[in-house]
C-alpha cells in the first residue's frame, strides 16, 4: 500500500511539474546557439514533415524549449524535445512559409541560461508524401534481415514493402536491393531478389511478376535500374561486382566492378538490349532524363584486361585510378534507337570520379556524387553531392547538404524542390537519410535528418538507409503478396538487338 501511495505521489508531482513548466522569466543569455542532436538549427523543412524531435546536448538539470511561429507558441520541457503531431502541425501552419524560432533554456546550478534562438525555416514548396528506402545493416558480405520500407514523411509511420525474412532462405540467404519506381508512382516498380529464389520482382501496370533479366548475351541480371519516366522501358546496368577490404583505411571496403554494361529492358517484349557495352569500359548507373529521351550513365575506361582475375588484380592495386565520367545517349522513342554517346561531365579530367547521375525533373540540373575514385561512393568519405547546370556545363558542390563523410544515393522530389540522400555523417558508418531544399539557382538550404519519433532513435538503430526514393503514393501490394511472386518461377527474358 505504501508503494502505491508513493507512485500516486510521484505521478502527482510529475503532473504538477509538467503543468507548471513555462519559459523562465529570468535567464542569463548565452551568446551562442545551443548544441542539439540532430542538428536542426537553420534547416529548411517542408510544411508536411513529421515533427522534428531532438535532444539538447547541453549539460543541465532542467530544460525548456520554446517554439515561436507568428503568434503561436509551443513550450516543451525536458532534454528530449518530442512535440506531438498536433502541436507541430499547428506550429508549422502558423509559420506559413516563414520560420519557426526556437529558444532553448537550460537550468544549471539553479540558474537558467538562455541560448541564442535558432530558426527552422518552413518552406512553402510541397514535397512528395512518401519515401522508400532499403534498411540494411552496414555490412559487407553478410545479409540478414533486409527490408525495403516506405515511410509517410508527415508522420513516423513506416511500413514494410518486402522483408527477406518472409522466406526461409537458409543456408543461402536472400539479398534484396535496388527498388525503383516509374515517375514516382508505384503501379510500375521493381526490386531485385538475389540468391534464394532470385529474380527481379517487377510490377508492370499494377501486375506483379518475377523476371530473370540474365541472358546468355549479358554478364548478369539487371542491377541498378531506372524506369523511363515516359515510355515503357527500364534501363539497367549489368555488373560483375566484387568487394575487397581495406586493412587500415577508414573507408573499410571497396566495391568494384570487374565488368559492367548498360542495357534496356522492354517489359512488353520481355527482351533486353545493350545500350553501352564496350568491353574495355565499365558502364554503370543509368538514369533517364525527365522527357525519357536521354539516357545518362557513368563510364570508366580503366580496365584493359580481358580476364576477370587480371582485372581484379589490377583494380586491387590501382583502385585509386578507377575514375568514372558521366556520359549520355539520346534515345528515339519512335525507332527505339540510341544515338551517339556524349561526354557530359569529365570527372576523370579533374582527377575525380562521378557516379549516380540524376537529372532534375525540370531537366535543368544534373545531380551526382563526386569522389576521388571508384563507383561506390557511399563508402567513400570524400564523396559529396554536386550539381551541374546541364546547359551551361558549370558545376558546384551542394555545400549546405554535404559533409566530411559520404553522401550518395540521392533522389529528386517530383517537383524538383527537394533532394533526398543518404549520408554517413552521424557516426561515419550508418547511412541516414537527409532532405535538402533546393533553390532555383541549383543551390540547397541546409539539409535535415529524417525525423523520428524519438530523439535517440538513431543512437540505437543499427541499420543503414540506402537508395531512398520519393513516391507520390504508397505501395499497396502487401509483403505477403510479393512473397508469392518471389516463390514463383521467373519469366525468362531474351536478348534482342532492338529495344522496340
Amino acid at each position, binding site marked *: 500500500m505504501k508503494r502505491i501511495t508513493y507512485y500516486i505521489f510521484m505521478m502527482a508531482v510529475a503532473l504538477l511539474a509538467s503543468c507548471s513548466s513555462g519559459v523562465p522569466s529570468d535567464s542569463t543569455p548565452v551568446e551562442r546557439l545551443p548544441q542539439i542532436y540532430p542538428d536542426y538549427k537553420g534547416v529548411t523543412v517542408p510544411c508536411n514533415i513529421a515533427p522534428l524531435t531532438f535532444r539538447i546536448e547541453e549539460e543541465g538539470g532542467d530544460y525548456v524549449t520554446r517554439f515561436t511561429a507568428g503568434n503561436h507558441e509551443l513550450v516543451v520541457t525536458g532534454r528530449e524535445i518530442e512535440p506531438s503531431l498536433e502541436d507541430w502541425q499547428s506550429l508549422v501552419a502558423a509559420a506559413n512559409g516563414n520560420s519557426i524560432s526556437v529558444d532553448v533554456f537550460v537550468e544549471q546550478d539553479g540558474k537558467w541560461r538562455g541560448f541564442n534562438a535558432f530558426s527552422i525555416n518552413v518552406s512553402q514548396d510541397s514535397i512528395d508524401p512518401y519515401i522508400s528506402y532499403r534498411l540494411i*545493416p*552496414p*555490412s*559487407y*558480405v*553478410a*545479409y*540478414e*534481415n533486409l*527490408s525495403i520500407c516506405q515511410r509517410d514523411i508527415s508522420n513516423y509511420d513506416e511500413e*514494410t514493402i*518486402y*522483408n527477406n*525474412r*518472409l*522466406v*526461409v532462405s*537458409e*543456408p543461402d540467404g536472400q539479398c534484396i536491393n535496388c527498388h525503383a519506381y516509374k515517375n514516382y508512382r508505384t503501379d510500375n516498380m521493381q526490386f531485385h531478389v538475389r540468391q534464394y529464389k532470385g529474380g527481379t520482382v517487377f510490377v508492370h501496370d499494377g501486375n506483379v511478376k518475377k523476371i530473370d533479366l540474365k541472358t546468355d548475351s549479358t554478364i548478369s541480371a539487371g542491377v541498378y535500374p531506372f524506369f523511363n519516366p515516359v515510355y515503357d522501358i527500364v534501363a539497367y546496368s549489368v555488373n560483375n561486382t566484387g*568487394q*575487397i*577490404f*581495406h*586493412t*587500415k*583505411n*577508414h573507408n*573499410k*571496403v*571497396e566495391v568494384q566492378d570487374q565488368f559492367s554494361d548498360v542495357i534496356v529492358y522492354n517489359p512488353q517484349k520481355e527482351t533486353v538490349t545493350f545500350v553501352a557495352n564496350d568491353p574495355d569500359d565499365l558502364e554503370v548507373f543509368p538514369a533517364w532524363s525527365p522527357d525519357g529521351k536521354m539516357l545518362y550513365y557513368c563510364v570508366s575506361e580503366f580496365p584493359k584486361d580481358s580476364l576477370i582475375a587480371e582485372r581484379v588484380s589490377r583494380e*586491387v592495386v590501382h*583502385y585509386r585510378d578507377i575514375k568514372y565520367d558521366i556520359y549520355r545517349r539520346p534515345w528515339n522513342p519512335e525507332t527505339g534507337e540510341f544515338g551517339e554517346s556524349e561526354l557530359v561531365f569529365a570527372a576523370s579530367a579533374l582527377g575525380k570520379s562521378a557516379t549516380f547521375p540524376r537529372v532534375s525533373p525540370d531537366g535543368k540540373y544534373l545531380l551526382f556524387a563526386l569522389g576521388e575514385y571508384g563507383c561506390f561512393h557511399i563508402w567513400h568519405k570524400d564523396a559529396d553531392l554536386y550539381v551541374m547546370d546541364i546547359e551551361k556545363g558549370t558545376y558546384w558542390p551542394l555545400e549546405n547538404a554535404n559533409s566530411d563523410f559520404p553522401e550518395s544515393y540521392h533522389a529528386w522530389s517530383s517537383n524538383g524542390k527537394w533532394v533526398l540522400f543518404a549520408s554517413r555523417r552521424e*557516426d*561515419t*558508418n*550508418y547511412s541516414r537519410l537527409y532532405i535538402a531544399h533546393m533553390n532555383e539557382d541549383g543551390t540547397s538550404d541546409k539539409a535535415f535528418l529524417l525525423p523520428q519519433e*524519438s530523439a*535517440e*532513435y538513431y*543512437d*540505437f*538503430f*543499427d541499420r543503414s538507409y540506402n537508395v531512398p526514393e520519393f513516391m507520390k503514393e504508397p505501395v499497396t501490394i*502487401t*509483403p*505477403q503478396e510479393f*512473397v508469392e511472386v518471389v516463390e514463383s518461377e521467373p519469366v525468362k527474358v531474351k536478348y534482342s538487338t532492338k529495344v522496340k
Partner: protein
Amino acid sequence: MNKTKKGVYVPQKPHKDAGALKAKGKRTLFSLVKGFLCAIPERPLLVAGAFFAVLWLVLSFCEQALLFRVSDLSVFLFDDLYFDNMMSVPAGFLSYLGSFLVQFFHLPILGATIYVAMLVLMYWLTRKVFNIPKRYSLVALLPVAAVVASNSQLGYWIFYLKLPGYYYIALLGIIFSLLAIWAFRKLPLPARIPFVAVWVFFGYPLMGVYALAGAVVMVIYGLSLSVRQRKGVLLSCALMVLAFAAVYMVPRYYYGQYSTIALESVYKAGTPSSQWTSEYVAKVVHEEYSYWYNIKFYWIPFFMLMASYLLLALVPVLKNILSKFRRLHVAASFSVLAVIPVFLSVHWFDDANYRIENKQNMAMWDEDWETVVELGNEAHEPTRQIVLNDNIALLNMGKAGDMMFENPHGSSDIKSPVGVHLTQTGGKMLYYYYGKLNFCYRWCVEDAVEYGWRLEYLKHATRSMILSGEYTLARRYINILKHTLFYSGWAEEMEKYIDSPELIAKEPSFRLPLQMSCYEDALTVDDSFVEAFLTKDLMVVPEDATPEYVEASLMMSLVRKDARSFWPLLDRYVRVCVPKNANNVPAKKLPKNYQEAYLLFKQLEKAKAPDDRLISLEGLSEGFEKFFIDPAIKQRFEGAFISKIANINSMNNPFTRAFPDTVAVKDKKPVKAGEKYNASYFRYDFSDTYYYYFYFVRNIKTN
C-alpha cells in the same frame, strides 16, 4: 503420508526392506547402497533437491567460462527500440525476457542461481499444475532435464544461433504455459473456451510455438480431466477442436501481420527451426561419425519436453490403468533417475577444447595472459583457436620466442554440425591483437548482421575503432554499451580514451594492437580464414615495422615451417628486436625457439647443394652463433636430437631428407618406423622444441 511437526513428510509405512535392514543392524556397503536406493522413491523431493544442487554446482563452478561466453554472445539494452526490435517477431517477448536473464550469466554464479531457480519454479509448477503426487514427483524432473539438455547440448551453436535469449526461451515459454494451464484448470468448463482463444491469440505473438504447444497440452489435459471426472466430455472435445483450429489459424493470421517471418516458420516461432535443418548444415562434411554432427540430435530435448507434458496431460485418463500397477512410483522414480543422468551426459557438450577456448576467452578479456598459456597447456590436441590464443598471450608477455612450442600444437577437429570458423569464435580477438583493426571491426559488423549485435561484438568494435582513431564510431558503441547492465562501467572507461586520446598510447593493454598496426593500408580479403590470412599477411613486413610486428612475423614463419621467409625475418629480428649494448654488440642470445629454428633450418640448408641454398652458410658459425646461439641449445639439437634420429632410421622417415649424412652412417639395417612412433619416441625429450613441431606436428589445418 503423515506430516511431522517439522513439516517433513515421512512415509506412513516404512519401506519393508529398509525396516529389515534396520532390524538387522548390519551396515555393510551393500546394505547402505540398498538402503539409499530404497529411500529414493520415498524422499523424492530430497532427490530433486540434490539434482538442482548438483546442477547449480556444475554450472557455477565447472561452466563459468561457458556462461560468461553465453552472456557475452547476447545483449540486453534498456531501450525502447531494442524492445520494439525484439517484439517484431513472434515469440519476441520470450527473446526479450530471455536476453534480460541471459545477461546475468556475466556473473556466472549469479546467473546459474537465477537459472536453477527458474528450473525449480518450472519443476514446482509442473507438479502443481498436473497434480503430481509427491511420491511421483521425480517424474516432473523429466521436462526440466529436457530444458537443461536443450541448452547444455549447444556447444559451438552458441556462436551461430540466431535466436536471442535462447537459453531461457524454452524455460520461460514453459513456465508461462504452465501458469496458463493452471488457470485453465481452475476455470469452469464454459469459461475455458474464451480462455483458450485468448491464450492462443494473444499468446502466440508473445511466445510463438510455446503458446501453441501450451494450448494443445491445455485442452488435452482438460479433456483428460473431463473423462476422468465423467463431466463435460463433449464440451472438452469441442474445446479441443476449437483449440486445434486456433493453433492452425492464429499463426497464419499473424503471418499477414508480421513481415518478419516466413509462412513455413510460423508454427516453429521461438525455436531455431531455420538453422536446425539438414540443409543448413549440409555444407559441412565430417570424416568420422559423431552424433554431434547430426542435426536431428539437437531436437531430441524438445521432443522429450513435449512428450513429457503430453504424457502428464493424459495421466488422469490413464489413472485407472496405472493404479493397477503396484509400486509404480518406485519404477517411475528409478526410471527417471536412470534416464536423466544418461540423457544429460549425452546432451552435455563436454568437449575439453571447447572448454579451454571459452576459459581462454574469459582470461583474454581479463588480460590474464599467464592463465591463457596455462590453459593452452591443458589441451591434448588443441584446436587452432587454442594455439593462436597461446601465441597472442605469449606475444603480450614478450615470451613468444621462448615458449611458443612448450604448449601442445595441433588442429583438432571441432565437434559441430555447422562449419565453425574463427571469424565467429575467436577471430575478432586475434585480429584485434594482431592490429588488424578494420578486420576485427568488419567481422563484428558482419556477425551482427547474421546473429544480431552482441556484447562481444560491441566491445571489439569499440576497442578497435578507438585504436584506429574512429572516435565518432567508437562513441556510438560506447553509448549502446552504456545502456547495458554489466558493461556501462567498461564503456565509461573506454570513453575516457576518446575524450583524451593521448591516454591511448599510455594504456598498457593497447600496446600490442597499436604496435601491430604499423603496416600500410592494403586491399585484401580473408575469406573467413583468420589464421591463413594472418600468416600470409604477416609475411609482408613494413619498412618501419615495430619489434612486435617483426617478432609476430617471425613467429608465423616458424608456424608455417617456412625457411624461405625465416632467414630474412630472422635478420630483421636481430636488427630490430635484439637489444644491443653500448658497443652495438647484442646484449643477449636469441630466444630459445628462434635458436632452434636457426639450427634446424641451417641443418636443412646443409643438406642442399650450395647453389640451392637460401642462405650462405659460411661465417654463420663464427659470427652469428657466437652472439646469438646458446651452446646448450646447440648441443641439445646437434647432440641429443640428431643422435636420437640416428637410432630410428627409416627410408620413409622425414629425417632421411633432412639429415642424409646421419642416416647414411646408420643405414646398414633400416628399421621401419612410422611417424606416430617417431612422435611418441621424441615427445618426451623434445616436445618443447621447434624441431619437434617441425617434424611431428603435421597436417595442420588452419582456420
